[in-house]
């Protein structure tokens, strides 16, 4: 296959999968699962940053978004409430 089309196809697949992850993260009512879907979305964004030829941004984004945000929000959930809205 032509290498230009392969490059752009990988970018399109990564962005479509990130749309699925963002929808699942917003619609979920259990907050621990929402944080895991948000980390999945950050992984697809990191792949997209690599394919756009931006290595400095990629090295900043991976430890900040997959490492620090996920751990801090999990500590926050432990100290406050786990389910949003009212329990049915």
């Amino acid at each position, binding site marked *: 296959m032509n290498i230009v089309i392969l490059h752009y196809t990988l970018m399109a697949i990564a962005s479509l999968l990130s749309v699925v992850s963002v929808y*699942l993260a917003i619609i979920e009512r259990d907050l621990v699962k929402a944080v895991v879907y948000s980390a999945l979305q950050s992984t697809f964004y990191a792949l997209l940053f690599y394919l756009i030829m931006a290595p*400095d941004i990629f*090295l900043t984004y991976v*430890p900040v978004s997959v490492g*620090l945000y996920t751990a*801090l929000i999990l500590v926050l959930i432990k100290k406050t409430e786990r389910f949003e809205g009212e329990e049915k």
Partner: protein
Amino acid sequence: MKRYIHVVVIVTLIMLTIVLSAAFALGGIALYLPPRNVRSLAEIFLKTTFNPEYRISPMSPEAVTAIVWDYRGLDTLFETSVMFLAIVGALTLFRGLSEKLSQEEIEYRGGLSVIVKTVTRIAIVMIIAVGASLALHGHLTPGGGFQGGATIAVAPMLIIITFSTYYMSRSISVKKAVLLRSIGLSVIALTTFLVLIIALTQNSTAYIFQNQPKVYADYGIPSYLGNTIVLGGTLLLFNAAETFAVAFGFIALLILITIPEDYAKTIVLEGEE
């Protein structure tokens, strides 16, 4: 029933994206196509980033680090001060907690099992080595100050999870971490004025954030060591000091946020009432 609604909505979202982009591509109103030439400002940045013929060149083969610390150094100065203000605000909200933590002797022998502790000890050494390598090579390969600092900040998080918060705060307390962060920030401030101080003692002038000799200011930090090693002037000092400052700032915040809730609530709410 609820799961089928979610599956239908996801499939609809994907089909909508594909159909919209096909309509834009085939209908002649291309939403965006990447251009073949880059803007003329970017051509100036790319042409003069490692070119001894131009006097404005910062002599580092990495264009992004040169823009962050040399061409647009004042933006980075204000970004570092915004981060500092956020840390000061977070420390103010939890005031009174760090002094009580260092006064009492809290004996806690716990944590996860022996296997996890041994693997964590090996992993922490590797994480700190990778972070230091990213910081010191920032002017030659992708890397730099903030990248190395954020990578090193993952290591104390692992220590807090597998050992305990009290183990971490016995070796580096909150006050010591804030002090070390301030030392790192003052090294950044000193490097900003370094060429100015050198030039003033020789009865001449220079700019602040100056890296290489410019047209009317003939002083600078050397950019080559010998004939083959590229030093990068002030970029190396900036990257190392920024890594130090960012890592210790995160250590201070992580210790404060992982103190158990029943112990912290009494100390923090006493002052409110």
